């Protein structure tokens, strides 16, 4: 009896992923340099094991969560099987070298995710949402296949490694077209405008599936782009990534501000974060992008799993006024600069005048913003105002740097994971746009533009057929 209770499907899945996770972590720590190949089909290197660790971690946490959360759900078993299938297909994708398994696992990943969105087959709107997502994922797969097969055809190579090795010998128009298709596939996966609607219509999936989607599916794009870093360099499409990513990051962050449903709010935040990650790719920091997608996975999965905590009685509040005393402003500047210095020292970014200065600037402003809020708070003593900001930014930057350096180390196998580029006008102009966005937000100008409110509201609505389409009769 005890035996039977313990070895039900949800527990088995949890144990399975936990074991895999532990094995992967052990391999990362004690495995030294990892490099296995299975014919031409699969290759497993340190990067593979890194992503496997992350994927199995989410697989374990989410199946454990789901085993109690979904108790009594008619499709509990189906759900667990889909989750397992999804997670395994991600793992296969990561280790795929052969074009067929690479494209096939990407497609299967999407099929499983679409099935999870419509897992409750009694529910008409969920089925509609599932169809929408499936259509997007098929499109994404078609983009990816076009790009990869084009390269494969022109380079006469059937493996990803083979293609990458040949990239520089291919004609420019081939690499350019292939890059664009691969970028399009990435945009679909990350729900970047104009491919964002599937994600905003995907709330019919049970909460743990949303966590999996936001921590393990949308960031497939980052992995994809990192794998094809060489191609993107040679086709000169990094600036394109940078602009798309940057714009998305800004617009989605504004869109997030007006969301009234918690899951859509989280989805807009995900889109913004994916934009930021793609921007990091565009700057040539694929390692930073991978670090970001993993950290964002932790962050967003947590927020989805705890999304039932948003009920709270409150009273209408006016936006706070922006006022700062000169001495406080000085403190903000000093800590902002110290934060930047610490970041540069610990991560090695921004030391020379290249693109990474952009990332350093963001860290610096973040530290400044944190300090600004803290020094203005009346309930804190002067000593606390002086001590708390450094404690926070040292902890935050320190832990990040540790993580970032770890990821960089583990990505050493990947060609061109970090190639800082010299700053060009594009980056400078965009840097200015970014700062303008920051000030508009900070000063609250946007509140006075009703037109913008309605446009962003409409663009972030789910598909109509996924809401209130059916009625009981």
């Amino acid at each position, binding site marked *: 009896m005890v035996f039977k209770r313990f070895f039900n499907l949800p527990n088995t899945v949890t144990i399975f992923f936990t074991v895999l996770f532990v094995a992967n972590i052990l391999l990362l720590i004690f495995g030294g340099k990892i490099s296995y190949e299975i014919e031409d089909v699969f290759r497993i290197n340190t990067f593979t094991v890194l992503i496997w660790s992350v994927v199995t971690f989410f697989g374990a946490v989410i199946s454990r969560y789901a085993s109690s959360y979904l108790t009594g759900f008619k499709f509990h078993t189906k759900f667990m099987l889909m989750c397992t299938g999804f997670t395994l297909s991600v793992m296969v994708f990561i280790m795929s070298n052969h074009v067929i398994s690479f494209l096939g696992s990407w497609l299967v990943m999407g099929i499983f995710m679409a099935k999870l969105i419509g897992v409750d087959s009694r529910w008409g709107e969920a089925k509609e949402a599932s169809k929408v997502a499936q259509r997007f994922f098929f499109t994404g797969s078609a983009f990816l296949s076009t790009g990869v097969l084009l390269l494969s055809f022109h380079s006469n190579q059937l493996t990803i490694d083979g293609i990458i090795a040949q990239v520089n010998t291919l004609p420019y128009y081939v690499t350019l077209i292939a890059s664009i298709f691969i970028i399009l596939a990435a945009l679909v996966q990350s729900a970047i405008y104009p491919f964002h609607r599937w994600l905003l219509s995907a709330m019919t999936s049970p909460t743990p599936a949303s966590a999996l989607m936001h921590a393990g599916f949308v960031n497939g794009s980052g992995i994809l782009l990192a794998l094809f870093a060489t191609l993107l360099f040679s086709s000169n499409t990094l600036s394109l990534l940078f602009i798309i990513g940057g714009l998305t990051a800004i617009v989605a962050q504004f869109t*997030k501000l007006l*969301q009234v*449903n918690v899951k859509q709010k989280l989805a807009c935040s995900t889109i913004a974060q994916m934009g930021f990650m793609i921007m990091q790719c565009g700057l040539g920091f694929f390692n930073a992008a991978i670090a970001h997608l993993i950290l964002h996975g*932790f962050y967003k999965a947590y927020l989805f*799993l705890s999304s039932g905590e948003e009920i709270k009685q409150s009273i209408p509040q006016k936006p706070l006024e922006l006022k700062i005393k000169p001495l406080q402003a000085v403190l903000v500047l000093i800590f902002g600069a110290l934060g930047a210095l610490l970041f540069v020292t610990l991560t090695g970014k921004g030391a020379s005048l290249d693109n990474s200065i952009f990332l350093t600037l963001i860290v610096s402003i973040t530290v400044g913003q944190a300090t600004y809020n803290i020094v203005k708070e009346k309930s804190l003593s002067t000593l606390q105002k002086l001590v708390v900001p450094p404690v926070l930014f040292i902890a935050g930057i320190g832990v990040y740097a540790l993580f970032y350096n770890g990821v960089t180390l583990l990505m050493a196998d990947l060609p061109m994971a970090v190639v800082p580029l010299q700053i060009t006008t594009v980056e400078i102009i965009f840097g200015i746009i970014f700062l303008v966005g920051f000030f508009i937000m900070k000063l609250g100008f946007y509140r006075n533009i009703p037109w913008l409110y309605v446009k962003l509201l*409409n663009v972030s609505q789910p598909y109509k057929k*996924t809401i209130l389409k059916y009625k*009981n009769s």
Partner: protein
Amino acid sequence: MINNNIKTSIATASKVIGNTWPLYSFVTSNPLSGYETSTFTEATKQASKHLGARVFPKAHVFKQAWDNNEIDKYELSKLLKENGLKKSPETYISKLTCYKEKTSENPFHVLDVIMTKWLAAFMDEGLAEWQMPNKTKGFYKSWRQLAKYDNDVSIKRTNDLPKTKEEALNTVLNGISEEDYTNIFKLHIAALPGWTGYINHRNQYDTVWQNTYPIDLEDYLAVRLSIASNLGIDINSILTNKPECDSVLQLQLIFLKAWEKTLQNTIVELVDTSKSEKKTNKTIETVDAQLVFCIDTRSELIRRHVEAKGNYQTYGYAGFFGIAMDYQDLKEGINRKSCPPILNSAYKVTEKPQAGKEEAVNRLEIKNDRDTFWNYFFRRMKNMLPSGFGFVEGTGVFYGLLMIARTLVPSKLYAVKKKTAQNHEAICETHCEPVTPTVGYHSMTLDEKVAIVKSGFDLMGWKTFAPLIVFTGHGSHTANNPFGSSLDCGACAASPGRHNARLLAKLANDNEVRAALSYKYNISIPNNTVFIGAEHNTTTDEIVLFDSQIPVSHNSLVADLKASLVEAQKTASQQRLGMVEKSITTANKKANSWSETRPEWGLAKNAAFIIGSRELTKGKDLDGRSFLHSYDWEMDKEGKALEGIMQGPMVVTQWINNHYYFSTVDNETFGGGTKITQNITGKFGVLQGNGGDLRMGLPLQSVNKTDTEMYHQPLRLSVLIHAPLERVNTILLNNEHLKSLLDNEWIYLMVMDANDKNTVKRYSKNMNWTWPTKEKKERKARPSTKEEFEKELA
């Protein structure tokens, strides 16, 4: 000017919906409250017509009840026969479904979707940092300003729309006959009953959000009908919801009644046997403590277990302890109602430092300010550009670690949470001021204090005073649960009842109050009696005493009581969770696990309300199905106390019971749907999936064991009162509302007639009574074999 006819029609039409309560103070009320003046049968017919709702349990639920012997064969056959249905009960079980349930396309799909977009944006209570512009002008005007930017409709200029909602309604109704108004309004109000119910709620309780950002049904209809006319949708289309076929409805009602009758028979048998048992006559010397619990069904279990642990007496009293008050908490300064919503709050209660604890309170207040600041800080960092990105990178690892901890060791985290929680009860005391409409401050008068304390003892029929008297409010502790407040005290408008309990204890400890009680009313409370406020945590069955101000003389008594309460928690949780080992750990885990969708069962299974002395039920396992109110008919000569109980607690229990009933029979329409796909909106409600209508009731996980297996048995409340029949009759004749609840079969009433050898009598329509005990004799002679049974039926 708005046509008066329109106003009247809206008022009439609004009866099709009830009140949707915000989830931060989720009162379980009757979703069909607009129809309470009609019979249950008529009301359910209307609801089924307008809302397309199911109003009786599904066939498989009846089947489950039948298989579990919850429907007595004898009662069922009798009812079937009375209705001219002559075959055996089994034959009819298969006939409870007349057609397969199916879904069809929503005729107002596009219109509904556009409306929900604007309603959710307008009614948001702080989830969005960027609020819909011009909200202070009201819903219609603020929508009008934005309509021209919305490409879901084709409105070119703002001036194409009338300036006010009144003009807008006049415009869209132009050319439609006034007789049709009510039907049109009904149709459109019922199209989104959750949202319109929330509009109802905001207006009825005049909330602070409503004051700042007004919206009413006129606004709603003006916007909706304007959009409809812009999109060329016929607003006067014919209702498409067809009610379930009549023959099945009748059959379902028969099955329901038989099920309810079966339960009533069980209750009657139970109190009958109590009567014959020897009463235990405990003198005051042997009672160490008396504990008063809420009438809540969950109190029944814990009372039984506390009583078994020593010389303890327990009482049942409405959990707001008779104080019609609002409570303002120390941390956020938000005013919350802390008494039944049917009462107007007469008092406002705040926290004041206990003597000598000012410094500690000061520190706590600073800490609270800091907590508020950090919440704001994190929200701000997440929302702003570009800190949102830096924040994720700096905190990601910590979120990952927290995720592991919350998944693996929720009960350990619960222990940490309890340890570090700042309990202001230890350093503060309640301070009560009347809420007066007139200008000027005055504090609570002695008469008011005395009246509150006295009425408690009156209602409960209190005779003797033990050295410790504990007023136990109750609250639930759950994590990641949007419906947390639905598990709190229903009598306190879905707040925990601890503050009412603390205040009553404080008033009863007041020497002036005691003196006045003694010389005015001859109620003498011994000097050595101490009153203590407490809280029963219904998720873990722990009882916490707020004993920071008790005299040293009572320390050892309190220590003994605490030890007993720990024992009671252990055995109560063992029984409730059906496990012997680690029941408390399991309960703690349920309380704090973020993946737990059924942390406790709340008031599920409620079916009866027993008003009378504890002797009627003591030692009986009522399976947590019964509300219990203490009452002694001998001490209530004029029947005032009973009238109060019937006007207040009985009505509140009816609300709760009807809410559970409807949430169970149609969880999609009247309930909240399944928790696993809920999406919180505006900090006050939930939607399903991508959006749509606001959900108005309890989630599936509060009433069902699984998607298909019931937990709550959907039965109307059966009230049993121990008192003279004439007294009950007089009260009913003086309270038309109560009589109509009975005549319309929203609840059942039984009286254990104290003037007629405690015979139990059952109310049937128009002040007629029947005698179940007579029925019982009839029943004893019933055929015992199947053959005999069939013979009799034939």
